[in-house]
């Protein structure tokens, strides 16, 4: 079943099968591109078309309902299939490698303008190829045996990659001879998504499913391993093993490779031999022959000479442009490829960064009121958000969509206004950074308040937090340290740290240190004094605020609070798990000038554990010094620096793990026990069955025996009776 279409061919309506039509179109297109340099091209093609049309009419008159593939093929054969013609007219046409023997000097050169260079060029030798003809091409270039080159390629490690690259970038001999270079196009006829794989398949003369598989295999593995996607795996993002990477590569190829829409592009895509070129060559050649003779006869000598001179000049220019060393060509192409790859990677990274910035800024925008002042800063913030971040995002998205939908707009105004707005955005962003930076420039003096403890002489102090739900950490999808939670008018900053030290007296001492930044020292001091932080002791428990509350008026200026707890020697301290958001560190260096600063040398403190203060520091109840039990922490150190309070304290994880382990152990034990129990039960059942069986059989045996005995009894009873009587009798008689 085939679709038949009607075409207007040379003024007559021809019903023709669609495939035949494609065939015909391709043929005529190949003629057209063949005669492209021919003066009378249109006329020649018109004549050929007329003849074909006439032949079509003949067929139809004979009773065919439509023109079929066979008809078209027959006609093409009649007109001269390119190859046939080439064979018939072989000879001076070309040798397989595409260089011309320069027998006729400049005249020959004139006849083969497209490919007759002086000097060698590197081609893939498609007539002696095994894979892509790279090796035999190189061998031909250097005049050595292809086997040597092949062995070298196989032996050297990078051979494969190099081979593929050369395959791509070195023109094939056949392509060149026929003046058609294979080009990479997307194939709209064989497409599933964008035709990229199909086009690549055409380019390499392989089934389209091979490139498809190469694109798909990492994707399939991706679905089995969700784990490897994430912002932290960014370097993998660009590697080819990362499957979304292949997706991105596909999209880029989609955007970059043009689609083969016209027939000549399709021919270029497949690198189909447009062999009718040889017709042209023969025509040119023949005409030259005519002219030559004409010339010999002394006619039009001057005109011909002039013409040829002109064309020669043109060709020489062309040749000069094209001719350069083959190796130079390779190096330049390779360099170009690498440059494009690197540029592509950079562009991709920038785009990804931009998009993530956009997402983060959406999440952070509610915090604006707590950080930025209302005036210019607010304007800058909006400007940054809209112009610096969202304008390019929208621009890139629209660009991609337009490319995919193939909408082409030459509207420069849009492009320029996009660029203009983005520059405005950059200005806003820079201003914002400068302005906000200025607000954080100065650090306040340290305000230290000592907390009056109601019961400082307690033997053991427990530190806990006020039970206020509002201070709990928000479950927002995005968290920006040190903001722990915020609502419309209040934000809670988790900038609370606890430091433990040794008391010089024999009672507990607690002091609170408040610090803050500001645009000048005075403002910073004022703001620091405004920091609300409560601490009070009830019985043996010291209650602290979980976070610092700030409002939209006072703004966030990196307010932070440190609670210093001095523990007397011989006393116990325990910090509850739900205190504070940040780590608690043991602070044992009172002499340090920067003692209010966070020091990396401080030790981590495990929450929820009771410690005993000794002369030389804190010890756990097991007698391990607090600074020696940190193997576990050290492992987590790097992570904790980044997200110190993002996750539950590592100690908890640890414990949790332990519990899990124990749980799983007991679970396993239980299972084991159950198994044993069931097997025991089944054994029991088995035993009972066996018992019953034995019992039954015994009973049966007993019955039969009894029956037998009964029978015997019946038989023997008179005798027996007699016997016994006799005995009795005898006995009696004996008496």
């Amino acid at each position: 079943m085939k679709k038949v279409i009607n075409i207007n061919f040379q003024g007559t309506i021809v019903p023709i099968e669609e495939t035949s039509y494609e065939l015909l179109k391709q043929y005529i297109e190949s003629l057209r591109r063949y005669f492209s340099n021919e003066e009378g091209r249109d006329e020649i093609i018109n004549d050929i078309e007329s003849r074909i049309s006439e032949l079509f009419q003949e067929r139809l008159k004979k009773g065919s309902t439509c023109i079929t593939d066979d008809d078209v093929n027959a006609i093409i054969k009649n007109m001269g299939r390119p190859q046939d013609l080439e064979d018939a007219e072989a000879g001076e046409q070309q040798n397989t490698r595409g260089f011309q023997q320069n027998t006729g000097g400049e005249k020959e050169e004139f006849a083969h303008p497209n490919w007759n260079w002086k000097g060698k060029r590197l081609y893939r030798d498609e007539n002696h190829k095994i894979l892509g003809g790279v090796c035999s091409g190189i061998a031909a270039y250097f005049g050595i045996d292809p086997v040597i080159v092949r062995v070298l390629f196989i032996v050297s490690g990078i051979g494969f990659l190099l081979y593929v690259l050369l395959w791509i970038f070195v023109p094939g001999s056949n392509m060149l001879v026929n003046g058609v270079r294979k080009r990479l196009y997307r194939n709209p006829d064989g497409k599933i998504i964008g035709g990229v794989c199909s086009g690549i398949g055409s380019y390499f003369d392989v089934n389209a499913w091979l490139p498809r598989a190469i694109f798909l295999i990492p994707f399939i593995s991706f679905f089995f391993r969700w784990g490897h996607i994430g912002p932290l795996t960014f370097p993998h993002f660009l590697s080819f093993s990362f499957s979304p990477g292949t997706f991105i590569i596909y999209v880029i190829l989609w955007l970059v490779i043009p689609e083969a829409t016209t027939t000549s592009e399709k021919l270029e895509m497949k690198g189909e031999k447009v062999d009718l070129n040889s017709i042209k060559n023969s025509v040119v050649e023949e005409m030259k022959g005519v002219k030559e003779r004409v010339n010999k006869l002394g006619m039009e000598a001057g005109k011909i000479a002039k013409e040829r001179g002109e064309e020669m000049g043109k060709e020489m220019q062309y040749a000069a442009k094209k001719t350069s060393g083959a190796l130079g060509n390779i190096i330049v192409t390779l360099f170009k490829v690498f440059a494009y790859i690197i540029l592509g990677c950079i562009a991709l990274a920038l785009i990804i960064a931009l998009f993530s910035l956009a997402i983060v800024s959406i999440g952070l925008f509610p915090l604006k009121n707590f950080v930025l002042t209302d005036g210019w800063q607010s304007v800058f913030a909006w400007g940054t958000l809209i112009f610096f971040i969202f304008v390019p995002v929208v621009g890139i998205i629209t660009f991609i969509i337009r490319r995919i939908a193939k909408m082409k707009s030459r509207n420069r105004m849009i492009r320029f206004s996009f660029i203009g707005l983005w520059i405005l955005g950059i200005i806003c962003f820079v201003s914002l950074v400068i302005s906000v930076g200025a607000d954080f420039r100065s650090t306040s003096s340290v305000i230290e308040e000592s907390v009056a403890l109601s019961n400082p002489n307690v033997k053991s102090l427990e530190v806990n937090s006020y039970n206020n739900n509002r201070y709990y950490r928000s479950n927002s999808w995005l968290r920006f340290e040190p903001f722990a939670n915020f609502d419309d008018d209040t934000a809670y900053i988790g900038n609370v740290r606890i430091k433990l030290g040794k008391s010089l007296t024999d009672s507990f001492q607690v002091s609170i240190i408040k610090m803050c930044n500001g645009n000048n020292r005075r403002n910073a001091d004022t703001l620091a004094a405004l920091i609300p932080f409560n601490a009070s002791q009830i019985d043996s428990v010291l209650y602290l605020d979980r976070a610092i509350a700030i409002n939209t008026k006072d703004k966030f200026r990196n307010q932070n609070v440190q609670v210093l707890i001095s523990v007397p020697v011989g006393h116990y301290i325990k910090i509850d798990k739900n205190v504070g958001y940040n780590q608690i560190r043991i602070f044992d260096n009172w002499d340090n000038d920067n003692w209010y600063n966070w020091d990396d040398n401080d030790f981590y403190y495990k929450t929820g554990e009771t410690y005993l203060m000794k002369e030389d520091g804190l010890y756990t109840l097991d007698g391990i010094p607090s600074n020696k039990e940190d193997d576990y922490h050290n492992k987590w150190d790097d992570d904790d620096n980044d997200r110190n309070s993002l996750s539950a304290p590592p100690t908890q994880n640890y414990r949790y793990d332990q519990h899990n382990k124990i749980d799983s152990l007991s679970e396993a034990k239980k299972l084991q026990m159950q198994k044993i129990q069931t097997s025991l039960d089944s054994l029991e059942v088995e035993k009972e069955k066996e018992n019953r069986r034995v019992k039954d059989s015994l009973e049966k045996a007993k019955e039969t025996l009894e029956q037998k005995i009964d029978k015997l009894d019946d038989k023997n009873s008179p005798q027996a009776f007699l016997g016994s009587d006799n005995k009795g009798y005898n006995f009696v008689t004996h008496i």
Partner: protein
Amino acid sequence: MNIDNTASQMRKGVLEFCILSIIKLGEAYPSDIIDKMKAANLNILEGTLYPLLTRLKNADFLTYRWVESNSGPPRKYFSLTEKGADFYKELEATWLELANAVEEITGKKN
């Protein structure tokens, strides 16, 4: 240097001459030319003929006239111009010279 190469070179040289001599006999339609050449055992593909005719026409050696056809589009019937006739004469002279020369040479050899 192979036989096909040489043979086709030889054939090509006389192609225009043959075409012109067919047209000289009277107005000719390209497919008629083909048929006649085939009949004389000189096979040529139509695809080669059309460009040749166009070239010759553009060189003012040939002219054509449209003839309505009841089987398809109008046909181009080619005929020689005066210039073409001159050209043909020159070619004919050259050919005869050449043929004689070749005959003599090959004949001597034999």
